[in-house]
């Protein structure tokens, strides 16, 4: 009864590229613009979102038959908020530096549209296996989105990747001039826009090949 719809494998594959949350669905733009100045912050955000998404999808899928339709947003938000709080406390306890760096953006995962969208579209309608596959696929897609933007921004704005300074050594003759604007808010918009254009172009080429 609740198993019609894409299979687990389809859900998983779709989440990574065809229905990529950043480049195709254009969801979760706020963290994408805010935390992608460094790779470390992006990975932390991606893992936190993955944790919240997978756990919420599991719970919503398990109780999907009990949720009254007109109260579903309430229930989704409750569940998501709980897991985000757990993730927030966990980060504050075991990764305090990252927690300080990410600041308010971890609690803001509660309003990340990707998570509530997956709950609404998949977890509330399908059984456990497709819901988990969907969550994992979308999380990987989100991680790809974040990391692609972060790679560009961190390389060009600070000459490092994951805080490892690359071959541009400070003070040497090949020191990277550092496009500081890419580390700031406008740079986030530029990078995301340009990368989205690239993604659309690549996607269009794929579709032409398939057609």
């Amino acid at each position, binding site marked *: 009864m609740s198993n019609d719809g894409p299979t687990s494998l389809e859900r998983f594959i779709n989440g990574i590229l065809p229905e990529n949350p950043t480049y195709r669905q254009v969801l979760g733009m706020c963290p994408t613009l805010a935390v992608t*100045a460094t790779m470390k912050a992006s990975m932390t955000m991606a893992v936190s979102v993955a944790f919240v998404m997978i756990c919420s999808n599991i719970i919503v899928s398990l*109780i999907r038959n*009990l*949720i*009254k339709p007109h*109260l579903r947003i*309430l*229930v989704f938000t*409750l*569940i998501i908020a*709980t897991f985000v*709080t*757990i993730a927030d*406390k*966990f980060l*504050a*306890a*075991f990764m*305090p530096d990252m927690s*300080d760096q990410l*600041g308010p953006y971890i609690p803001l995962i509660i309003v990340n549209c990707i998570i509530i969208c997956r709950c609404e579209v998949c977890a509330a309608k399908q059984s456990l296996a497709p819901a988990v596959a969907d969550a994992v696929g979308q999380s990987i897609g989100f991680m790809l989105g974040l990391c692609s933007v972060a790679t560009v921004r961190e390389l060009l*704005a*600070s000459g490092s990747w994951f805080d490892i300074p690359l071959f541009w050594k400070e003070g040497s003759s090949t020191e990277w001039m*550092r496009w*500081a604007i890419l*580390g*700031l808010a406008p740079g986030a918009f530029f990078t995301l826009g340009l990368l989205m254009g690239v993604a659309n172009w690549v996607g269009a080429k794929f579709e032409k090949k398939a057609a």
Partner: protein
Amino acid sequence: MLKYFKQGWLVIAISLAFGAILAGVQITLGPKIKENQITKSYNRIPLLVMGRENVEGAKIVIKGDDVTVERDGKAQAVFTVVKPENPLDYDVYKVCQDGKQAGWVILAKGNGYADEIVCLIGLSTDLKTITGVSVISQKETPNLGSKIQSPWINQFAGKAANPPLEVVKNKSGAPDNNKIDAISGATISSDSLTTIVNQAVAKFAADVKNLKFATAAEEK
């Protein structure tokens, strides 16, 4: 009444269940989070009191109120942190070494260019010299204002507490005793931090007379 309950029983049940889970998480992780906050401050006490060069490369071990600076497994210096019996609205640490006071460390907060800047200021026992400043948290512009957390801040160490520090923009490295060389491209951040330091030092000079400390630490 009953029909509302029939509609909402799931929401109530989930709220109670998750509330309990979150309470459990808070009970387990709460102490660790508080400890992290204190560790953040205590970790910097040696470099504020002893000077950054003396602490470079050493390991800092915190046990309760004792902060040990270790090099190659041997303790180089042991500081005991004493908090006032009548705490102010900002953290004040009286840092003692071998029974005598080695200096003061106070927490200061203020508005930076973007958001709040929180820093620790080390003062000499007689309150005449700033022995160091360490920024704990800032949300300034990355690569510009955020440089207040880089070696730029070392120039605060050794400056006199009176007269108040002034921010200048020359490239000469600010040799004068009460001048701070601004970060190029981040004048406001540099100004904000210097103002925070000046105000905190002046306020503490007035507040210190009212502080009471347990004398047990001094009798060691």
